[in-house]
Every structure is written in C-alpha cells, then in structure tokens.
C-alpha cells in the first residue's frame, strides 16, 4: 500500500479534482437521515456520519434501471458509461461492495454493474460507529481493498491510503504530502480507538449449522413479529436479488426491459407460474435470508441497517443470538 497525507484545508481541492473525474455522490443529511446524493459542493456533504439509509450499492445496481429496449423482437442494450465518484464510503460498505463484486463480476459478469464499477471512483472514509455496528465481528471493520483512496481522519488532516492506479494519479497533486511515521502511528491509534467503540459482538462460528437445525417452534417465535416487508433487504449492502419486467409503450410496438431490486422476504419471491411457491411462509423466507447472510458464508458486513430500519423492531444480532441459545 502507498500512503499520503492531505490537509483538511486542501480537501476542497481534492473535491474539485474528483468533480473533474465525474459526478460526485456523497453522504448528505436529508430529513434526519443520511443518504448518498449527488453534490456540487463539498459543504453539502456530511462527512462525519454513522450510516446512510441505503448502502452505496445503489450507484452500481440502481433500485430500478432499464437494461434493454426493444422494438418488435429486436433488443438493444442500454449500457451506461457515465463516470462518477462515490465519496465518503465506510469500511463496512466497501466490504459490502466487494461481496457484490463477487456476484456481479464473476463470470458471466453483469455488464451493467461492471461498467458502473469500472467508471466509479470509491473514496473511503473512517466512520462514526454507534451501538448497532458490529463490523468487527464479521471481518469488515477495515477495508484492505475495494477503494481508490481511503481517508483516515486524523483531526486536522487525513492519512490517505492509495488503492488503485486512479488513486495514485490523484495523489500526485501538489496538495498531497508524504505521510510519515507520526501520521501512521496516529492513524493506527485512532483506528484502534474507533474499533473499541464497536461494542456489539456476534459469534458466527457454526452459525450455518445452527440455522439449518433450528426447530419449527423456534422459527415461528423468531419470525412472529416480522411483517415480511422486505426493508431489511432493501437497506442491506450485500442483497443482490433483482426482478425483471417488460414495459410497453401504448402502441405496444416498443418497450423496455427493466430490472428492480427484489426482496427474498416478499411472498412472491420464489413463486413460479402455475402458483407453486417454494418459500410460502415467512419462516421459510427468514431461514433463506439468514442462510444467505451468515450461513453458507459470511455475507453480512455488520452495518446494522437491517436492525435500525426494521419497522417491527427485529434485531438481526439478537435473532442470531437466540438461535445460538445465548440471547439475553
């Protein structure tokens, strides 16, 4: 890894350079929530924040996008070549992007996701954890890759880790200075302090087996409050499910094929034509969701969104602790 430092006073200069690259999306406070939104000015961004409502995956896999247009039976692809910058992404969310990369960039790769990923710079930033964060238990409290630059807040300046060729080119600007031992040691100390503030712990050893063997009564109790609304999926940085539908113009000659985020908690997720539903109840759907997140592999990045935004107040960590039999 290469390192540099950037004075906070010079951050607007970096911001201008980023704007020169493409549209900049940054965390912005809106109606009490923080969301990634396009910004023109660094002042609009809220750089010290805990978590955005939606994870940054929306830049690579939009909630809704037209993938094809058609006229008759001739299909034309709608690929986007727009350059963009995602500024202020936390380690958990960068790790979430890396997990989605494995889905959408593995062969056969998803061209829509791949193009956006290639055309988007990711500028990481140290986070402000709260009591719902548990990234340190799922190995995503630190981002080793998946960014172009990562900024560690040292108070008056940032220690910058350089993670790509594009990041290296940016760091050659005159306002980037060489980072020395003092900044490195301070960054390590602050990183340790930040991790110490993440009190929430989850033990995932053998979790897949426990999920698989949990009894029927246990599942019914666990899912009793669940509204099957799918909010947990929509706010999850690693949920990948999407649905596809065709939309027609009124003359029914032309149209577009559109894909949208889908949710495995919704009743029709596993419904096939003819009416057979392979996951008809909320119990089966929750079993599937938990298996997907922490069963076969750890796809959860510990951001806490599913717990924070669950309208029924279901706590993801508590649910897994109950399955383990260690809940308070």
């Amino acid at each position: 890894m290469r390192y540099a430092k950037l004075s906070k006073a010079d951050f607007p200069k970096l911001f201008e350079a980023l704007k020169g690259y493409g549209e900049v999306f940054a965390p912005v406070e809106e109606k009490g929530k923080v969301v990634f939104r396009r910004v023109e000015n660094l002042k609009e961004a809220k750089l010290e924040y805990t978590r955005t409502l939606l994870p940054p995956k929306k830049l690579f896999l939009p909630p809704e996008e037209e993938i094809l247009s058609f006229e008759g039976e001739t299909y034309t692809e709608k690929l986007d070549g727009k350059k963009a910058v995602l500024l202020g992404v936390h380690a958990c969310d960068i790790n979430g992007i890396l997990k989605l990369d494995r889905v959408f960039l593995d062969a056969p790769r998803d061209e829509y996701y791949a193009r956006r990923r290639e055309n988007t710079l990711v500028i990481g930033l140290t986070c402000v954890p709260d009591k719902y964060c548990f990234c340190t238990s799922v190995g995503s409290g630190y981002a080793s890759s998946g960014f172009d630059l990562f900024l560690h807040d040292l108070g008056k300046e940032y220690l910058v880790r350089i993670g790509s060729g594009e990041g290296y080119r940016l760091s050659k600007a005159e306002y980037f200075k060489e980072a020395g031992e003092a900044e490195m040691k301070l960054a390590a100390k602050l990183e340790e302090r930040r991790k110490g503030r993440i009190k929430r712990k989850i033990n995932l050893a053998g979790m897949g087996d426990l999920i698989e063997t949990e009894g029927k009564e246990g599942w019914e109790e666990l899912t009793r409050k669940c509204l099957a609304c799918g909010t947990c999926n929509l706010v999850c940085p690693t949920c990948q499910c999407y649905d596809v539908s065709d939309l027609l113009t009124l003359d029914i000659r032309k149209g577009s094929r559109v894909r949208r985020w889908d949710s495995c908690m919704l009743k029709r997720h596993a419904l096939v034509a003819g009416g057979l539903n392979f996951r008809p109840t909320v119990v089966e759907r929750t079993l599937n969701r938990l298996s997907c997140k922490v069963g076969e592999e750890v796809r959860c990045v510990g951001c806490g969104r599913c717990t924070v935004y669950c309208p029924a107040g279901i706590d993801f960590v508590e649910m897994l602790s109950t399955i383990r039999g260690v809940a308070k």
Partner: protein
Amino acid sequence: MNELLPRQAKVLKVEEQTPIEKLIQLDASLNHQPGQFIEVSVAGVGEAPISICSSPTRKPMEICVRKVGRVTSALHRLSPGDKVGIRGPYGNGFPMEKMKGHDLILVSGGLGMAPLRGVLQYALDHRKDYKEILLLYGIRDYSLMLFKDEIMKLMDSKDCRVYLSYEKEDEVCKNLRKKCPERVCEGVVTKLFGMVDLNPDAYAVVCGPPVMYRFVFKEFMDRNFPPERIYMTMERRMKCGIGKCRHCVVGAGTSMRYVCKDGPVFTGVDALQIKGLIG
C-alpha cells in the same frame, strides 16, 4: 458480451402436443447438453426459463412449453416465422459422458418428460455407448402424454424398455395395459418401480413435478440404489439464469445452491444435503 441481451431465433414449427403443451422448433444451434435450459423472451411480455427438450444430436432445437403463465401463454400464440429472443444454454445438464457404459433409468412424470426426451434422444443416437435404457413415465391420461408417436414407437422397439403408468384410465391406456401388463399399470410413476429390477450399476435420470421427487427418491433409497448415481433436474423461479438474481436459490444453513447455475441437475447426494431440495 452482455449475457442479458437475447439474440433472435426464428420459430420454425409449432405443434400441439397436448391441450396445454406445445412443441416449438427454433432455428438455433446452441451445442447444449441434455438437461440445460434457455431463457426465452417475448418482447413486452417477459422472459421465462424453458428446458431444451431435444438432444444436441438432433436439429433443429426444440422446446416443449406448458401454458401456465404470461410468457408461456405468449409462446403458445407463436406461429412459424415469428421470432423470439433466447439466451443460454444455461445450467449444468445431465452428464451424458459419465453415464456411458451403464444402464440408464429414466423416471419422468408429466412435463418432466420434456428434458428427459433430450437424454433419451442422445442415448438412442449413441445407442452402443449405453447398456439397457429403461423409461418409467407417469402420465395423468393418454391425452396428456407428451411425444406420443415417439413413445409409442419406443414401446415396440428393442432399443429402450418403456414402462408407463397413468392416473386416469382411458381407452388407449386400457388397451396398452391389456397388451403389456408387465410394463403398464394404473397409478403414479412410483408404482412402476415394482416392475423393474434396479441395477445398482445404473444411472438414474429423474424429472417431474416438484412433489414427485421425494417419493421417487425414496423408492431408490428403499432399494439401496446409490444416491450419487441419481440425477434429478429441478424447477425453481429462474429469472436471470446465471446466478445473479437469486430467486432460484435452494437450501439452508451451510448448503445453498443456485438451481440455474449449480443445477438444474442435482444428485441424490445433493438431495440428502441441501435442505428442501426435494421437499
């Protein structure tokens, strides 16, 4: 290459198989494996996964479509000369090479005959490479039998031993049973297991409605048939066909698979390990 972009295929022929199923010939050559599927698009209606029901040794490629939803209803409205969009082939298919030198036991119920027809055609076209070929086919009644001419011809041939079960007796079925009582009976497909000797060295190839698998699997297990020699092809909701949209995911805990990418063909060992795979 954009995997989600369909290419055009011309409809060559549309043939009614049963009141709810049509055989559609497409001008396409995909070099597929029996058991693989394609995503078929009707612009403005959508896309649906349909298994290829012909062997790669036979041209043109054919799909057998049951009218059950919006896309399949649109496919039923096609005429020769019309165009559809196709992507694929997807999925693993049946291991035709690996099964060479062994008996084949094909077990199918209803529309499950469609993907197995590709296996059957392939084996008949490489007849020397396989030993005995047994087909156990369960239908509701004769009107719903798929590939009638082909199956009836096979019943009289030495290349393949056909066993037939039907749930509702009609004239044709009654006559068949009278003519050949050791191979035709009334009941569901599992009843046919009482009529055959299972060679433990054989490979089983199974396809039918989702409810059928656990009963067929039990018949094999009750006879100590090795689970690793059973190949079953599964139906699930498959939207993308390439392991991205995750609708078709099966299993729980540590064993999860995509039916579209890791399947649709799974073994009996998978059935033992993947929760809910065969119900």
